[in-house]
Every structure is written in C-alpha cells, then in structure tokens.
C-alpha cells in the first residue's frame, strides 16, 4: 500500500499546514510589529528597571493623585455605561419592532454616528457646550439661568459626550438580541394573561440579557481606555486614565510608570473579557449584526 504523500493542497480545498502557515505569515508579521512587540516592550518597561520590580505598579495604587484618576475613570465609565443602556434600550426595542423603511432609517441613525469620526462628534459637543454655545444660549434664553454656565471641563459634560459617542455600541447588540426573540414568546405570554409590563419583565428582559451584557461590557471597556473625548471636553480636574498616560509619556517621559498604568488597564480589561467570555461571543465585538 502506498503511503500518504505530502500534498500542497489536501483534496484541493484544504491547505496543508505548511501552506497555511505561509498564508498566515504576513498577518503574523503585522501583528508582531504593531501589536505583540509594542505591548510586550511596554510591559517589560513597566516591570524591569533593569531588574524586576513592582515599584511602578505600587506607585499607581499608593499615590492618592493617581488613585483618584483611577477611581474617576471607573466612576465615569460606570455612569456612561448606565446612561447608554438607559437611552439605548428603548431605541433598540423600537428598532426590533420596526420593519421596512422605518427600520432602515433607524439603522442609519445608529450606524451613521458610529462611523462618523469621534473627533467630529467631540468637536460638536465642544461647540454646543462652550460658554456662548447653543446650550447656554438656550438656557439663558428660556430664563432657566441668568448667566452662561461653565459647562465644558465638568464631569457632567465628559459623561454626556462619552455617552453620545458610545451609545451605538450598546444599541447594536441589544437590537440583535431583541430581534432574535421570536414573536410567539410574547404572544404566548399575553395569551397566558401577562400584561405589557409583565411580558417585558418576564420574557423580553431576560431574553435580551446577552445583548445587555455584551453591549454594556463593550461600552465599559471602551470607556475605561477612552482618550479623545475626555482629553478635549474635560479639564485637569476631569482627567481620566488615558490622559494621565499621555501626560506621563509626552510631558514627563516616564515610560515605566505609563507602562504600569497600561498594565493595570490591560489586566482589568482581560479579567472582564475572560469573566464574560461565555456570555459575550468575541465576534460580537466586531458585530455581524
């Protein structure tokens, strides 16, 4: 009997391990140069100086200034996540019930902001919230306040703008999971005597839980490391983690400490992703809705 010869293509459709590796090689090079190597070097910087040390990590948790930034980052991220969920759920419900043109328009309304530059959207809030901006004009015009308020460089402004930017990330997975609930469940619940709220409470809400989890996780993770919006809308008093890192790197050239903050951030992100790995399919992150 002949032994199995090595084949360039197994059955013409399956590539042999050697060919597969060859196809994966360019990817590996890109990921190595622009992903693995940089992250590895940064983490090495944070823990070796040149001998192994946890000094920089200790500094992140020991100094009140930095602890405050971390605490604020988590607080703002939680607020942004909750607001996004609160605003996003009714919209996702509406989309799940919509058909045809109405659905297309609603989808466009969610996708358009998603693909509009973060800078453009942040800039819009900057213009709206400035001292003589539209919001202050309206508030004074309506007599709610006497003189223009300081809106920029407040934590409220940061939360508002970030919620606006991150809202689509919670709407899309929510919409997907609500859309997947068969009509029959709600009909059945109604036949069995449940009123509107009971249907929501006992049928719709539990069944949309995967969407809630993945949407919230996505918003929370993005918020934790968010750079552009807090940096432009907030001031030093609203500094979040990403801006702190930027400052350490561009102004103080303190790479080991910046590396340590990033190390903490990566650890938090990894823990969350692994913890929710069973609920949140990773490809949802790239969202084939």
């Amino acid at each position, binding site marked *: 009997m002949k032994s199995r010869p090595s084949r360039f293509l197994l059955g013409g459709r399956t590539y042999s391990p050697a060919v597969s590796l060859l196809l*994966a090689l360019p990817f590996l090079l890109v990921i190595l140069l622009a992903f693995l190597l940089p992250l590895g070097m*940064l983490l090495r910087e944070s823990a070796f100086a040149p001998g192994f040390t946890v000094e920089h990590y200790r500094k992140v948790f020991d100094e009140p200034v930095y602890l405050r930034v971390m605490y604020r980052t988590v607080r703002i991220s939680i607020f942004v996540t909750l607001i996004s969920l609160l605003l996003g759920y009714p*919209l996702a419900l509406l989309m799940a019930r919509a058909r045809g043109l109405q659905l297309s328009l609603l989808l466009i309304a969610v996708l358009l902001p998603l693909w509009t*530059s973060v800078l453009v959207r942040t800039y819009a809030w900057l213009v709206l919230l400035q001292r003589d901006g539209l919001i202050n004009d309206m508030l004074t015009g309506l007599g709610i306040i006497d003189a223009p308020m300081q809106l920029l460089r407040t934590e409220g402004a940061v939360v508002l703008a970030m919620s606006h930017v991150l809202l689509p990330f919670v709407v899309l997975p929510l919409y997907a999971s609500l859309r997947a609930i068969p009509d029959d469940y709600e009909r059945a619940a109604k036949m069995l005597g449940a009123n509107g709220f009971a249907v929501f409470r006992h049928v719709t809400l539990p069944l949309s839980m995967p969407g809630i989890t993945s949407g919230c996780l996505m918003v929370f993770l993005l918020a934790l490391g968010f*750079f*552009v919006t807090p940096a432009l809308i907030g001031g030093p008093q609203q500094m979040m983690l990403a801006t702190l*890192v930027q400052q350490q790197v561009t102004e103080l050239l303190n790479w080991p400490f910046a590396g340590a903050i990033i190390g903490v951030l990566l650890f938090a992100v990894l823990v969350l992703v692994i913890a929710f790995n069973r609920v949140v399919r990773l490809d949802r992150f790239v969202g084939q809705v």
Partner: protein
Amino acid sequence: MTRTPITASRFAINAFAYAVVVFLLVPTALIIPMSFGPDRFLKFPPAGFTLHWYAAYFSDPDWLAATFFSIRIAALTAIVATIVGTLISLALVRGRLPGKPAFELLVVGPVIVPNIALAIATFLVFDGLRLTGTTLGFVAAHTALAMPFVVFTILASLYRFDADLERAALSCGASPLRAFFWVTLPQIMPGIVSAALFAFIISFDEPVISFFISDLDHRSLPRKMFEDIDYNVSPILAAVATVLTGLTILALVIGHFLGRSGRSGSTTRKTG
C-alpha cells in the same frame, strides 16, 4: 414583533426612543449649517452664508498636507490590510493551521486591547525604530488595528460561500489556484471590497494611535484636528468636520450597496 394597538406606555417608550435618535444625530448635524456661517465663533443659527471656511481649508497647506497624508495612509492600509486579511482568513477557514486558536486570539486581540494601550506601546517601539511619522509606521499600526474588522468581514463571506462551488470547479479540472481565482475570489469579492472600505475609514479617522506616532512634519488629519480643537477652535474645523461626515455617508452608501449584493459587512467598530 406584531403590531399591537399602541398603548400609552408603548407610546411613551417610542417617543423616548425617537428623542434618543435626535440626541444621536443632532449635535453632529448642527455642525453642518454652522460651517457655512460667517462668524469667527460658531453660531447657531448661522448669521449668513459663506464658503469662506471651506476655501480656507482647501488653501491651507497644513490642512491639505494632513489630509493627503491621511488619504495616502488610509489607501495603503486598505490595500495591505485586505491582502493580509484575505490570506489569514483563507488559512483559518481552509487551512490546517498549526496553533489555530492562538491565531484566532491574535485576530481579535486589537479589538480587545484599548486603543490608548496600543497607541502608547506603538509609540514606544516606533520611536526606537524611527518609525514615527513614517508611512510604514502608520500603515503597520493601522493595519493591525483594522485587522479584526477586515478578517471578520472576509471570514463571513468565506463561510457564506458554498464550498461545493469550489468542489465543482475542481471536478471540472480547475487546479486549486485557478479554482480560487475563477470561482472563489469573484464570489467573495463584495466581502473583500467592503473589508477594504472599513479598513480605509478605520485608518482615515483613527485619532489615538495617530496622536502619538505623528511627528511635526507628518501629521494625520485626525491629529491635526485634535491639535486645532485643543488650541484654536476655528470654524475651519466645522468645514473639515462637514467634509469628513459627507465622506462617511458616501462610504456607508457604497458599503450598503455592496452589502446588498454580498450581504456582508461589519456594522460595529472600535473607537477611542
């Protein structure tokens, strides 16, 4: 869900949802009329109509340099990311790839790691390698960033592709390479084109990594915008923002029509 008589509570929920739509769209939309206003400080409603700020944008060498730099980076990123992404997708779907789970992890890696982490890390290494401000550096960083979106889009079209079509080509006497170019490639083309489109947009308005790896002479458009927003809020920005938003709508429309033929496309992205 079925059409049921609109109850008061449902009416309230829908009204709230439409208010959220307004919240999503209006802030950005207001920029557009303001960009045509004559005032030095942006006003709404605008006090008149002028194309002055557009003229200023298109005649300012700094803005133009940043724009063309970003277009070049984005175009190269689209090409490189699409080729690299198609190859790894084929290896993942068709190949007996050793260490496949590790590769899958590496594919999603850039989505999970926060952009700020990636940006700082890239800055550290690229500074040492003298890659900051270079086309190679930008394209490499943006290709890595776009990779998950490109790969997932192409994987989706590969999975949708009927494997028997390729078997049919082979049974007709086509070699594997010819079967790929004659049958598989034309079939997954809509996916590949929309992947390229995504990569282009992701690179073109990527603000965080660009912020760190730009240098004084080579700035991307987002970096230039960041600086101007931070230091001198000029109405030129409104003009730039309007142009960018217009381009985004155009890209989405193209993507939609491609998606219609290929039913493919990533609808989510990552932001920073």
